[in-house]
């Protein structure tokens, strides 16, 4: 019983942290699912989202979560433009070209953040960021709970959007068979642009909750890109449910690894898990 009681905290934290990881990985998973390109700039775009909220908070005094009413449309528009005018043209050459474009974007956004906001560590700390509450023996910071709730809400909205709207169905169709989608009258270039734009709006959300949970610097994107990779590898690239489960599993591996082997080992355990999954089930838990 002693052990079980001690385990409660890392399990609860693992699941809550999984919510944040899901949010971060969702855009990466969506872009890969639809366009089969791994957006290596995703982490940097998430961090760009964190900085937008930071700017809104420090310059305009707007709450980070509320600032999403500006951050999401802005990243949506940037995403639409990037896909429409850069990536779609790169696709016409090859997927490798698209990957290079993403790599270039990564460098551009990283340096942009560094120039504007300096390399110093920042964080989003509105008053409620320090709140916490107790459930039994576990003391839960409010932002961790917000991470998970937001992830669940965003997932649910995305699922309903993909199921119910023409555009959602078209995104789904284009991800399953591009040629057939073209022959059904779907302008796949436009659909791709919307998919990338939506993924970027998710990056804005992920950026805010990341900033509420952890401090960040302009180069933090790389670390979170790798975590997002881990999440989608565990869950299955392109699977939405897989992204949620992958986030939880990754979060749990990290917190339980930390509990049993000490804080320094937590990411080590999480990546060992990624290796094991790659070896045993390379398509991921929910991969097709």
């Amino acid at each position, binding site marked *: 019983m002693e052990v079980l009681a001690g385990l409660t905290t890392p399990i609860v934290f693992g699941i809550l942290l999984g919510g944040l990881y899901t949010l971060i990985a969702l855009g990466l998973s969506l872009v890969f699912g639809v366009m089969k390109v791994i957006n290596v700039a995703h982490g940097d775009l998430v961090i760009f989202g964190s900085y937008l909220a930071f700017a809104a908070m420090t310059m305009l005094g707007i709450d980070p979560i509320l600032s999403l009413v500006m951050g999401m449309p802005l990243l949506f528009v940037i995403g639409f433009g990037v896909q429409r005018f850069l990536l779609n043209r790169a696709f016409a050459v090859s997927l490798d070209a698209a990957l290079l474009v993403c790599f270039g974007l990564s460098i551009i956004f990283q340096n942009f953040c560094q120039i504007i906001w300096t390399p110093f560590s920042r964080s989003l700390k509105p008053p409620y960021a320090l709140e916490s509450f107790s459930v039994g023996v576990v003391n839960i910071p409010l932002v961790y709970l917000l991470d998970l709730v937001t992830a669940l809400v965003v997932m649910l909205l995305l699922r309903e959007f993909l199921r119910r709207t*023409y555009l959602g*169905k078209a995104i789904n*169709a284009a991800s*399953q068979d591009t040629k057939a989608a073209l*022959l*059904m*009258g*779907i302008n796949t270039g436009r659909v791709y642009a919307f998919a990338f734009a939506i993924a970027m709006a998710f990056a804005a959300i992920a950026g805010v909750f990341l900033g509420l949970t952890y401090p960040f610097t302009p180069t933090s994107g790389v670390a979170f890109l790798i975590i997002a990779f881990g999440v989608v590898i565990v869950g299955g690239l392109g699977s939405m449910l897989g992204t949620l489960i992958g986030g939880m599993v990754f979060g749990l591996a990290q917190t339980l690894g930390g509990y049993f082997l000490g804080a320094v080992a937590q990411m080590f355990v999480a990546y060992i898990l990624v290796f094991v999954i790659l070896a045993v089930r390379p398509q991921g838990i929910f991969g097709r």
Partner: protein
Amino acid sequence: MAQETLLKVSNIDVFHGSFQALWDVSLVVKRGEIVALIGANASGKSTLLNTISGLLHPAKGSIEFEGKNISVLDPFQIVTIGISQIPEGRRVFPTMTVLDNLIIGSYNRKARAKKEQNLKMVYELFPILKERKNQLAKTLSGGEQQMLALGRGLMSDPKLLLLDEMSLGLAPIVLNDLYKALKEIRERGITILFVEQNVRRSLKEADRAYIMEVGRVVLSGDVAELREEEEVKKAYFGV
């Protein structure tokens, strides 16, 4: 038989990269006809359909639909003006439901307005699709998937249906139903151009036919004439 020209392909050359797949191909489809495009593997039949659909563009020559040049349009624009291709291998969206597959067929703006009406037509033609509307497309049999592919194509509200190798991998008894459905589709005012390897079957089901060999049209005419043609007999029936 109606005489108004619906589709006119004139002297097109089409390349896959540096490989020339079509040589000076011409073809006419009149409104209300069922026309067969016959030929062995790699004779250019699918390339011709894909060029009409806008997936490929001709290097030379023109494609006119209802009198307008369409050879520079993109595939989604071609669908909107009323040409729908049912691709080889059916290519239904496997993890979408039967109903969602049909709805995605009505994606173009013009077809959306007539969605309910066209859905009713599809269910009348293929009642099995209505029964299975909530199943995932990948759970259907080959014949049912071909019906779904046809239904999905009809949902785009086409004037001209392009059908690529409908019979591939299907049992003769299933094919009979599909060809019967084609006749009914024609009754509803939709013109059909279909690609087929089976010469005997094509000459039975179509009004006119074009025979292709290595990227060229080598023979064309009414099916009755073609059946009598010595060359066809020799090349395809072995008599």
